[in-house]
């Protein structure tokens, strides 16, 4: 067991984690990136399809700039967002983000005459090299910037617990490199959680394999305050087949260089969504699209598991394929493109909620513990926002690091964690494999905590999960007890985090007694701005939890009604 000392441990190697590490490094503060996957090759950032143009960049009009802000606050976050933070973020994206990326070498797609290619419409976006694949060169660039800066990385290494000082502040991380099977204790003056937006807690989920809500679970166990854990976003048009393509999206977004976009048909072949007609801002319409689907499901013309279709049969192939990767799915299956409409299904996508942070420093409620990017509870979606957090957290830590103690090695905590992990690796009950338990848990979430929720299903899900925790978890069986590349062992570590976080999601879902955007309660169908234009704040108390409600300020945009049927609300 090796003890590593650094100034700041950054958990996560996506847009937020990499940018935090790069900025800390610039400030002369030594970061260490701990990444459960591979830096720049796992996590949600990889999936960025395009980059939204903020403010007045690239010839955006005043109206475009306003639309982008409105889209973020209303359609993306249903007003559950710190609007001042959003404003700062928009200004930063315009002034700093694009130039920084381009200077470092990111290629924003041009045409042959040298114009940056944009999608037309009320909100415009650009692509890194090609639309649908922008996250790949974007994150590859970050990976190389991290290498160039000489920033230390621990990859395929899972953070299994936070290490604490005697006063409860966070002073390090315990981790396992699951390729070598070696333990590491990282002692740091501050820990930044940058574990991302998605958690793979449902049978069908976007995001990458390693996601299991680790960041939320670690923060919760450390005593950090969480908020809006019920606010789950959904993709409504991922491929229904094959199973591993559950995040292969038939993108509904506006296409670069075209006035058209994909459309969706119900089981009767009737068009029920075409964002150019059906979305007020005609952009990234995931929640608007979800509401359209819910109506189809209720009319018996679609199911959340499939039975409805999406594709580009309204477009010319060249229109789709000049600047996007959207045709690749159809081509790889040998299907006629663009004539073929593929069967699609819903996948759980980003969580809007997460760790409660001070948005000027990204500090959590626990000293020494910070959060950046999607794992925070202050916003949802977009790689630019996650990147901005990377800058803010680096500056926040930079300002506060002098006040943070260099931790002493907490030997008893380290020994206890070694014992816990050793025990998990030798799980020899007569029950299911840990991977099976993960699937069981995801099935409960899919069936009872899916798109449409109600109190009785949610309570029943809590009972099911309690059964998994009490009856199945102690009897887990691991076939291979070796240390090297033992994914069963990793699954056993993951499933405990997932159980904890699923429960928090369900409790939070029970608490929010309204419907809002993608959060749909059959027993509370109204969007209730009078009572619930508020953060659903979750605090640890003793061995239990309690909720508080914290209203949002509305300095820039306001909903303009007090209560209305959520499915009739445009956002």
């Amino acid at each position: 067991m090796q003890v590593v000392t650094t100034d700041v441990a950054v958990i996560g190697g996506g847009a937020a984690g990499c940018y935090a590490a790069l900025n800390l490094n610039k400030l002369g503060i030594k970061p260490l990136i701990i990444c459960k996957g591979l830096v720049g090759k796992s996590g949600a950032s990889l999936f960025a399809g395009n980059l939204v143009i903020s403010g007045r960049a690239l010839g955006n009009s005043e109206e475009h700039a306003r639309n982008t802000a409105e889209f973020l606050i209303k359609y993306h976050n249903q007003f559950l967002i710190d609007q001042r933070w959003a404003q700062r973020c928009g200004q930063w994206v315009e002034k700093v983000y694009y130039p920084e990326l381009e200077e470092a070498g990111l290629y924003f797609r041009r045409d042959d005459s040298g114009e940056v290619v944009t999608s037309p419409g009320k909100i415009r976006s650009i692509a890194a090299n090609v639309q649908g694949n922008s996250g790949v060169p974007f994150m590859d660039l970050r990976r190389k910037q991290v290498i160039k800066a000489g920033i230390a990385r621990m990859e395929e290494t899972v953070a299994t617990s936070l290490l604490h000082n005697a006063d409860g502040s966070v002073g390090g991380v315990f981790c396992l490199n699951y390729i070598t099977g070696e333990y590491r204790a990282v002692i740091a003056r501050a820990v930044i959680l940058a574990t991302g937006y998605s958690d793979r807690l449902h049978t069908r989920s976007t995001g990458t394999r390693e996601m299991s809500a680790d960041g939320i679970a670690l923060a919760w166990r450390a005593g950090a305050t969480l908020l809006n854990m019920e606010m789950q976003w959904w993709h409504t048009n991922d491929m229904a087949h094959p199973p591993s393509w559950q995040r292969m999206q038939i993108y509904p977004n506006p296409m670069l260089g075209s006035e058209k976009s994909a459309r969706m048909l119900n089981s009767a072949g009737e068009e029920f969504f075409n964002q150019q007609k059906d979305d007020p801002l005609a952009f990234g319409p995931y929640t608007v699209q979800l509401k359209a689907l819910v109506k189809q499901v209720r009319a018996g013309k679609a199911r959340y598991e499939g039975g409805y279709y999406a594709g580009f049969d309204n477009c010319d192939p060249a229109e789709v394929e000049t600047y996007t990767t959207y045709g690749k799915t159809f081509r790889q299956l040998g299907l006629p493109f663009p004539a073929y409409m593929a069967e699609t299904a819903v996948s759980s996508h980003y969580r809007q909620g997460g760790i409660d942070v001070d948005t000027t420093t990204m500090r959590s409620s626990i000293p020494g513990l910070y959060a950046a990017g999607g794992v925070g509870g202050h916003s949802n979606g977009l790689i630019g926002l996650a990147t901005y957090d990377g800058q803010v957290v680096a500056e926040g830590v930079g300002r506060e690091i002098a006040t943070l103690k260099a931790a002493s090695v907490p030997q008893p905590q380290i020994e206890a964690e070694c014992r816990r992990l050793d025990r998990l690796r030798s799980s020899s009950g007569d029950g299911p494999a840990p991977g099976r338990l993960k699937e069981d848990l995801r099935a409960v979430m899919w069936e009872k905590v899916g798109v449409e929720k109600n109190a009785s299903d949610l309570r029943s899900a809590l009972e099911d999960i309690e059964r998994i925790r009490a009856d199945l978890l102690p009897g887990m069986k691991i076939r291979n007890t070796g240390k090297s590349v033992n994914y069963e062992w990793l699954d056993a570590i993951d499933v405990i985090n997932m159980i904890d976080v699923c429960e928090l999601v369900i409790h939070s879902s029970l608490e929010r007694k309204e419907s809002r955007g993608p959060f749909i309660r059959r027993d509370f169908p109204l969007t209730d701005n009078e009572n619930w234009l508020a953060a659903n704040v979750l605090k640890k108390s003793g061995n239990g939890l309690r909720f508080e409600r914290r209203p949002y300020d509305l300095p820039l945009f306001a909903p303009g009604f007090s209560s209305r049927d959520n499915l009739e609300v445009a956002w």
Partner: protein
Amino acid sequence: MTSISPADPSVPVLSPVDGRWSGQAEHDSLAARNCRLTPGEWLTVKVRRSEVPAGGDVYQAFQVPYQKWMRVLDALNWIAENAAADLAFRWFCGSKMCGTCAVRMNGREVLACWEAVEPNMVIEPLRNLPVIRDLVVDRSRYEDKVASLEPWIERREPYGEFPEPLTHKQMKDASKALDCISCMCCYSACPVIGLGNLTDFAGPAPLVQLGQTALDPRNDPEKVRRSLALTGIFDCVSCYKCEEVCPAHIPIVSRVIEPLKAKAAQLVPEMARHSFALRGIVARRGRVDPGELILRVQGLRALGNLRRILRLFARGKINPIKTILGIKTGAAEAAMRLLGNRAGRP
């Protein structure tokens, strides 16, 4: 649940498909490969394991039920969930973006999340990288090489403002290289990398990574020169194996390695000595004269390997008389016309 074995006669035995040729015959189109099985039919999947039980086979066989449009990754996931929870294979995204799930299927490199299953499959780890366990390989040899090439932009002029002047025409080759997901399919398929330490060839994947910035007009040529000098790029034999297996359909040889070779010949001419010599000989003689090639490339050093020279002579590979007399073929005139004014360049 350990063994799923539908060993009854109702399970059809499907003819094996040689992965090296899949997709090339007319009846074997992508459309055909995605609909030749019906859901519930059994696939036979043999997976190379790294820990072999006593008396067992290094290839462990599994029967896997087909699901609609099933990918190789789905078959591996099914095996892990139902038959061998301890099977080690790497993947993250499941949608051809992270590039970590590449394996060899029936002798050909494929991205597991992207490739259709075959009725009979043998799944093995990639070649040319050390196997850690089962299908999981150690990528560090590649990562270290890429890092040593410093594949990033260094500017001669300070960056102006966004958006800087740049056209897609200027970026057309770099743009192809930017589709790379560093999945290592090409690295595994490359026969020159397969020679191990006999050459100092960086390999196709590191060259594509380098091409992303070395073929970018914004990069400082001096920086590109330093990087190219470390690539051993002229050891590439242009066999196109890398292009054949690339799941991102990058024209690796024609749009990345060849343009990089041209840059190397210009920026680091000593690397291209063999190519210059070969081209010059063909231009003058209308044919390859191996004797002259050896002399021009190795000079007097060739005499240090006299036994080899004699062996080549005995086999008729070299003919000193023809070499010394400068014998030309009838094609010389045409060769000079085609290559003459560029004979100094590869």
